[in-house]
């Protein structure tokens, strides 16, 4: 199904979507764009390149309560916070971010134990993807193309959107998307020309060039394994690294978390909170032993995990080239440059 709407009527669309479930869409904030739950249809703003924090936070919020309890009271009184299954529409997700959900699914719901919170939200969500502007060059931080993701890939989305001038073309990709699209009134039908434009955009997106040349995941995996003991390489790579958590928090495929108890006045919450392998205390054991006390060890873990360990364990690189880590790194460390350096080393 192919539909379209004028951009200036976007709020009609978003307002209709709000009637179908919780709408999460990009919103302009002080520091830039972010995905937020929409309370006013006019908040949605598609004039963004990409958001500061990836939309993973929609399915995997930075703070997630598991249990609420009272200290000093019988255990049975504790209340489990059950996973949410309410319908959710995630609107305006860039193709690389769409891809990230697939990678996260492997970890959270398709292998080993199932994370019920992720799974419940994912299943209840309809994904509306949104093509990058293929007429403009990619931003210097981005390299999704390197990882085989096009700037306008509709795969993974339930509905995919492409902007054509003052219009927004919407195409359903899955049955779920089709059902949703069919249920929205007031959308105009798209012309064959629009359909061609859509297909052309997708194709242009595939040829879209980002910084790096394509590389073979297997070769990277092997190379990083071989390079593990090359301390000089990692020290050099991490000379500038501050060991903060920006890159991991902004990343769409970083999933590390901490489980902690927060209590006040006898009321407590067991919750998970995003954590970062870049933090010094991430691997600090109760015995005091910490296998990764040095910055280079932590950076090595991060890069190794994304491009090597993850590939061996799950078969895919845990990176979609969205460029957020590079964009937000306070010292301008570029993750894929390190990978390239590694390949040369």
């Amino acid at each position, binding site marked *: 199904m192919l539909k379209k709407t004028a951009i200036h009527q976007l709020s009609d669309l978003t307002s209709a979507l709000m009637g179908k479930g919780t709408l999460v869409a990009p919103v302009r904030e002080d520091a830039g764009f972010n995905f937020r739950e929409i309370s006013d249809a006019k908040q949605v703003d598609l004039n963004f390149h990409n958001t500061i924090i990836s939309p993973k936070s929609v399915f995997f919020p930075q703070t997630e309560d*598991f*249990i609420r*309890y009272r*200290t000093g009271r*019988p*255990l*049975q009184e*504790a209340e*489990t916070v*059950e*996973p949410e299954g309410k319908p959710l529409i995630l609107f305006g997700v860039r193709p690389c971010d769409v891809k990230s959900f697939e990678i996260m699914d492997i*970890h*959270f719901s398709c*292998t*080993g*134990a*199932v*994370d*019920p919170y992720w799974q419940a939200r994912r299943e209840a969500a309809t994904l509306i993807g949104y093509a990058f502007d293929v007429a403009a060059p990619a931003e210097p931080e981005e390299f999704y193309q390197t990882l085989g993701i096009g700037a306008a890939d509709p795969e993974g989305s339930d509905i995919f959107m492409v902007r054509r001038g003052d219009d927004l073309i919407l195409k359903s990709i899955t049955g779920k998307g089709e059902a949703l699209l069919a249920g929205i009134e007031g959308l105009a039908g798209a012309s064959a020309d629009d359909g061609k434009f859509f297909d052309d955009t997708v194709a242009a997106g595939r040829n879209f060039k980002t910084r790096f040349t394509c590389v073979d995941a297997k070769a990277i995996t092997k190379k990083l*394994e071989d390079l*593990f*003991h090359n301390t000089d390489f990692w020290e050099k790579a991490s000379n500038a690294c501050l060991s903060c958590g920006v890159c991991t928090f902004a990343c769409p495929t970083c*999933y*590390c*978390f*901490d*489980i*902690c*108890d927060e*209590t006040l006045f006898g009321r*407590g919450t*067991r919750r*998970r909170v995003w*954590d970062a*392998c870049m933090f010094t205390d*991430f*691997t*600090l*054991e*109760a*015995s*005091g*032993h910490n*296998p*990764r006390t040095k910055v280079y*060890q932590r950076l*090595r*873990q991060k890069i*190794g*995990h994304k491009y*090597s*360990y*993850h590939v*061996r*364990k799950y078969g895919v690189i845990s990176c979609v080239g969205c460029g957020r880590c590079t964009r937000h790194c306070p010292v301008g460390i570029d993750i894929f440059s390190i990978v390239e350096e590694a390949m040369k080393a």
Partner: protein
Amino acid sequence: MRSTNPYIPMPVEIVKITDEVDTHDIKSFRFKFLNAQDEARFQYLPGQFAELSIYGKGESPIGIASSPTEPGYVAFTVQRAGAIVPGLVTAALHDMEEGGRIGLRGPLGHPWPIEFLEKKNIVVVGGGFAFTTLRSLVTYMLHENNRSRFGDITVIYGARTPGLLCYKDELAAWEKRSDIKTIITVDKGNETWKGREGFVPAVCKDVAPSPANAVAVICGPPVMIKFTLPVFFELGFSKENILTSLEMRMKCGIGKCGRCNVGYKYVCSDGPVFSLAELEELPRDF
């Protein structure tokens, strides 16, 4: 209410506390499940662990010290962590009494590979309080239904002082049995100590178990493991036949939180039991 949510602990009650060592910082806790279906669900084998969960304090991953052949309870031997700033969970647990209730999440991780061990001679080597899951394994193997599945069993167990040996009564019982060879050693004895003195690696060298059709299962403080592994290697044990259990900081215990990631393994869900051959596959990042 029964939840399949892997992050939600099952309520258990402390039915017995045993002060294991003379420094009183290692205690064994026996728990019974408050819900029968939880007990039914908690099917484990030696080598697995569980998260002990105390609301307001947090969770702590601890190896299961009891054996599935001991019905009615599940036991853990817990050291009060941190000499200066105590670990919150272990300290709180140590302050509890029989009748106290906590949460339990598990069983987690892979057990000692029982099928792999079957029909083989087993050398169990342990040091200090890291003997817990080995105790579970030995108890499991010694059970009348299981004993015949395994070949010779040799236990080499050491601690710094006689007072620091865990499970003293059981050790004494094992020493009396003929179907298990038990060698107990301490780094430094005292007036009443009649047994062996010497470090575990040296004792292993001394005892020199035959590598023929044998598997060594080793658990202990890092320094003991470091010096014991080469001994077994020299004795002719292959890397596949040397097993150990890895320590790493863990939170979720189910391979999700990313904390115990070493190479392409998560220690919690892919381990904690690894053979030396598997360990050598991993980057030295633990």
